[in-house]
């Protein structure tokens, strides 16, 4: 059963779509209105990271850094040292891809209050191809002490994550998507950094029990897969973990205990991201069979977003298949 706070009548045919980066743009503007210390920096991608709304409203609090992501990260750190709350945006492939060391030393090690928005994450970037499809970003950011890592599901959650990041004191990374993806949540759907939210509850009369753990915009495919499994006699639930660091261990442990097997779903390499985080935690406290849906140690390519998500095994059918294989 779908959680009551989600959009009504979710289906592939009827669902509304919007890119998560739109939620960032709205959230950043709102955060800027709420706190005059919020500043925004961007590397020649002001429009496509949706930093433009903030830049238009607060031109004196916006810094155009040019094509220089290493500088972006450390300028952000310097501004944070003076009490600003910098939001630094580029494509995830370049920030945190190119400037990871600057993020490590000048932001994470300093525990600097910088918010890092990595747009164009995942293969759903589409036609630009593998060079621009960040599918390792959560792994490299999750390994950093002090860093919070969030993959919002849709534009509403991206907006909430942006506002929550502005309030949180310390470094935050959140990944955003380029293409329009399903709007699943509503302004009323709960969001809190570090808290998982159950988005679909299984039919308890069904004997076999699959728990799907999702992050990012694949929440929608996870929900559709859960519905499909239940229609075919398999109990399925979806726990959405927008924050993969810190992991909501309490919710995850309870979820694992309530299900026979788990399936993790992320638009990211299966190594080091959500699947890795879930496996690392559960292996120590409640060893659980886990099927990891995501990119299987390969690079992306050009194509249409949906076709790439399907091709790399993250479509609805792939999630259903992973669940069935897990139960075997």
């Amino acid at each position, binding site marked *: 059963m779908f959680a009551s706070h989600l959009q009504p009548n979710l289906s592939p045919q009827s669902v509304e779509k919007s890119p998560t980066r739109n939620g960032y743009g709205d959230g950043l503007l709102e955060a800027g209105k709420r706190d005059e210390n919020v500043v925004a920096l961007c590397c020649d991608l002001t429009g496509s990271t949706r930093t433009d709304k903030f830049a238009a409203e607060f031109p004196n609090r916006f810094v155009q850094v*040019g094509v*220089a992501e290493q500088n972006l990260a*450390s300028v952000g*750190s*310097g501004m944070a*040292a003076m009490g600003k709350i910098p939001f630094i945006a580029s494509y995830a492939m370049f920030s945190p891809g190119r400037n990871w060391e600057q993020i490590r*030393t*000048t932001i994470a090690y300093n525990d600097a209050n910088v918010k890092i928005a990595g747009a164009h994450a995942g293969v759903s970037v589409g036609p630009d191809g593998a060079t621009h499809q960040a599918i390792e970003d959560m792994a490299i950011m999750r390994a950093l002490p002090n860093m919070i890592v969030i993959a919002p599901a849709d534009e509403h959650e991206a907006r909430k994550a942006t506002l929550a990041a502005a309030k949180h004191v310390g470094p935050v990374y959140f990944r955003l998507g380029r293409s329009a993806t399903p709007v699943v949540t509503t302004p009323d759907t709960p969001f809190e950094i570090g808290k998982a939210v159950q988005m679909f509850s299984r039919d308890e009369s069904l004997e076999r029990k699959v728990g799907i753990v999702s992050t990012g915009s694949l929440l929608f495919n996870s929900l559709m897969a859960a519905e499909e499994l239940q229609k075919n006699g398999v109990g399925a639930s979806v726990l959405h973990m927008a924050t993969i660091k810190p992991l909501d261990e309490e919710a995850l442990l309870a979820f694992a205990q309530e299900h026979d097997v788990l399936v993790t779903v992320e638009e990211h390499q299966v190594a080091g991201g959500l699947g890795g985080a879930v496996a690392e935690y559960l292996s120590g406290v409640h060893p659980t069979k886990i099927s990891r849906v995501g990119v299987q140690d390969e690079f992306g390519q050009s194509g249409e977003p949906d076709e790439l998500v399907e091709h790399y095994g993250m479509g609805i059918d792939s999630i259903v298949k992973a669940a069935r294989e897990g139960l075997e």
Partner: protein
Amino acid sequence: MVAILMTIMQYLTSQEITELEFKANEIRQSIIEMLTEAGSGHTAGPLGMADVFTLLYFGILKHDPKNPDWEERDRLILSNGHICPVLYATMAHAGYFPVEELLTLRKFGSRLQGHPHRQSLPGLETSSGPLGSGLSQAVGMALAERMNNPYSAKFMYCLTGDGELQEGQIWEAAFLAGKEQLNNLIVIVDRNGIQIDGYTKDVMPMEPLAEKFEAFNFDVQEVDGHNIRALNDAIGKAQAVYGQPSVIITHTIASKGVDVFERDFRWHGNPPGKGPEDRVTKDKQAEVALEKLRTLAGTINTHDA
């Protein structure tokens, strides 16, 4: 003792300059002692920059060692973190922490990490070591300060090495500093001509360096990095420049003050006791260095120093 001067640039009397020179000498002795005790670390850069650091902490910076988080302080951002022995030694002599603590450098649990960690020691403005990032942070600080107060007289002093200028990020930051006309940014380059693998002219030539910075819209000065009066004048001018960031290329002698270590790139990353032996054997390096400093290379009697 040299009084800590809290005001912006001023004329230094001959007496004050002499006092600063003696202070720099004490700081160099501390550098030798702490590196020897640590058994690892960098010698050439810290000794070479002792005059610059002494002038900054005892004559230039608005700061308060007893209140390191004082909001109105100037910011000193050390970009080439590996020369931190001179930063730590100068801070200790300025009163940030006991001079005895210098002997904990690089040891387990010490606040004096092998490369600076901001959160370990009050008074540090950032963590550094990986080269090239400090200038960007100083640019960020300068931008933030200007947003807060366009008439601010708070300065961001960014210290960099010369080998460090081979990092691309330096020039990304220089682009932005020039574009934003950050007159509250003063970069001080330690132009000692050496880096780990050899002389900078051999590893990666960087001349004409002044012209490079000029091309990025910096006001550029070149001075003798061991002449306190010249340094003082250059910083005074840099503070007065409006509409441009400033860079002061300080020509320094690597390992300055210990003539048997001077100008030799092999002292870049070795402490006394582990350096090249063609002039002094390892077992005598610390002792000889301290003796050289205490006697100003044999020109004065120890008891007068």
